[in-house]
């Protein structure tokens, strides 16, 4: 059993290398991506919407599409996401949108690869789904 890094997790992660004003969002260099379907709970997704940095979700999806070193597994259909998330006329979220968000936040996993600091280019390795964010002494 191994760990896998969701894009929801990536949404919160930043580089803390000394001297970088800009450590977020981390670029994703994926060597291995997996899709693992999980049960859909619309209330949970709705609760997450105000917490996430949505632009980063779009960015992460784009990173995976463009910078995956291997072909994406066939079961991964990167959902087509809108520019912004908005409620419909009934002040609710469209169910299809919630399902897409669910897939993108929780079911697409980076298993191997690197996270890259946008400010310094420093690469943080992801091994067996666990990113190693420990800085070297000269980076503190």
């Amino acid at each position: 059993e191994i760990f896998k890094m969701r894009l929801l997790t990536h949404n919160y992660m930043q580089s803390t290398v000394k001297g970088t004003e800009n450590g977020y969002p981390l670029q994703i260099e994926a060597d291995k991506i997996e899709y693992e379907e999980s049960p859909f709970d619309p209330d949970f997704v709705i609760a997450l919407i105000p917490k996430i940095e949505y632009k980063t979700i779009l960015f992460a999806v784009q990173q995976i599409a463009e910078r995956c070193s291997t072909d994406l597994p066939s079961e991964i259909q990167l959902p087509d996401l809108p520019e912004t998330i908005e409620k419909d006329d009934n002040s609710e979220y469209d169910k299809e949108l919630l399902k897409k968000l669910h897939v993108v936040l929780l079911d697409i996993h980076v298993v191997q690869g690197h996270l890259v600091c946008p400010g310094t280019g420093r690469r943080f390795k992801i091994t067996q789904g666990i990113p190693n964010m420990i800085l070297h002494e000269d980076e503190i």
Partner: protein
Amino acid sequence: FITADQESVLLAALTGPNAPWAPSQQNFSKTGSVKRRVQHYGYVFDYETANVLRDRDSDGIDAKCPPMPSLPMDCAGCCDEELESFANDSVKNGDGWNVLAAVIEKVRRYQFQDEATSNLDNQDVVDNSVVSEEGARGNDGGIVATKTNPIRAAPLSFPNINQITVNEYKRGQGIGSHIDTESAFGDGLISLSMGSDCVMEFRSKEGTKKLVHLPPRSLLLMSGPARFYWSHQIVTRMTDCVDNKVISRRTRVSLTLRTAISLADESGNTSPLHIVESSSFPPKWGDARNNASDDTSDIATPETERSHVHAVYDAIATQWHHTRGKRGVLWPGATQFLKELPTGSIVADVGCGDGKYFPAIWEAGSYVIGTDISEPLLQTSIGACSDFESKLGPESRLISSVRSGLNARPAVAVADCMQIPMRTNSCDAAICIAVMHHLSTTPRRLQCLRELARVVKPGGRINVQAWALKQDEASKRKFAGTDVFVPFNAQPRYLKKVQNSPIERSKGNNLKERTTKCQGVAEMYSEAYDGAEYDERKGLVVFQRYCHMYREGELEDLVSHINNLEIEHSGFESGNHFVIMKVV
């Protein structure tokens, strides 16, 4: 001479994480190195030349041992009762260095009585015993004291004590027969024994042998012929025989107080060297200047934490996880804190270890991102709770299948709490449990709090918990000092492979073959980790974890230094201090 509590606190300081051990040295006859660990205060005693290094500024850093611990300013000139009271207050505060300062002052003031006896078979234990030639009575000093036949004579005291050597004798270690260098030290060698009994052997120049039993907490005075004429030694063996009973030796720590003297002038006179002392603790080698550090190095990982926290958890990760149930249920305050979180909260679990609190967070309908410095420990958090499903209660806010999904793939990253790899103001809450007591300096503790305050958004809440110096009344556990080593008994079969250990590198063969031989693995870890020892009798590797035990109010005081943190609630529960705060 000292109480059992004073002994515990002294030992915790003298053999604890801040103990200023001297670099190892060759012995006088250069036949090998001095194997015992030693410390010097005031002036270094150099084993190669068997003399005192009088010039603290010469010989580079090796002559600049820590100063003699001294009493704080407001205690100078206090009376004996006040001194004892200060010593006991220091014991309550787990403050070993202040206890040491009090003991030094007590010895300087002590009036040793000359007591004569002709009964040399009587080796009664007394608080101060002095060894003599057979049949000697009185005037030269140096007499075996017994309770049966004391004769009062001139008072004898040593107010100019300016040098201390601490010797640690592990089971089976001893010290060769010698007379302390005459030109180095004046009369009056005083030794406080702690931790174990032992029997010291005295030999006169004619070959007469005397045995003196030194029980723990006793004070030994060697004066006159006992100091200048009789040599003394501790035989290297595992037991001693006292009154026809065999006493097993344990680790013994002796504190020897001496008066170092100047070289003789033309008239042959000497005088005591001036006292080099300080009430700044913990005592350190070298200049105070060298110990100051700039901002960044203030939070760099100290060696103590590397070898006594990080390396230990890396090694014991598997056993730690397997025995988690034994180490107690989740701390109630923390689970309450998590239950109060709104559904869908993002929680940072900083120093999450094996993910002990993950299930509670999922049950609260929230998403946790855990970080820890130990990768092996993080790896045990997968399926963080194997009986997770069965623990679900009616208050669980996520549907069970979602929780299982989260449980199967916990979100974790390897990271140092000094630099939490999360964006500013992104989390709704953070917990930091059993982490602060592994941070060894104030700047690091502040940095951890600062980082927690940074990643949690304004209005969010943080829960920090750490071990308390004062434990529950009912608890058997008692911490003897504020900075201590807490042992962890590791079974070799659980110990994980160590990358880059010296034995690993030299052998280079398959770990599986080696792990079946428990002793081999244990030896590998004993060498790989500084301070770990192999207990042959129990077949366990004993790691020493560095811990800082918090005094009442100490955590709150640290939090008060962080401007955007406001304390909501703090207290003591189950042997821990906790603080719940809000980011403002």
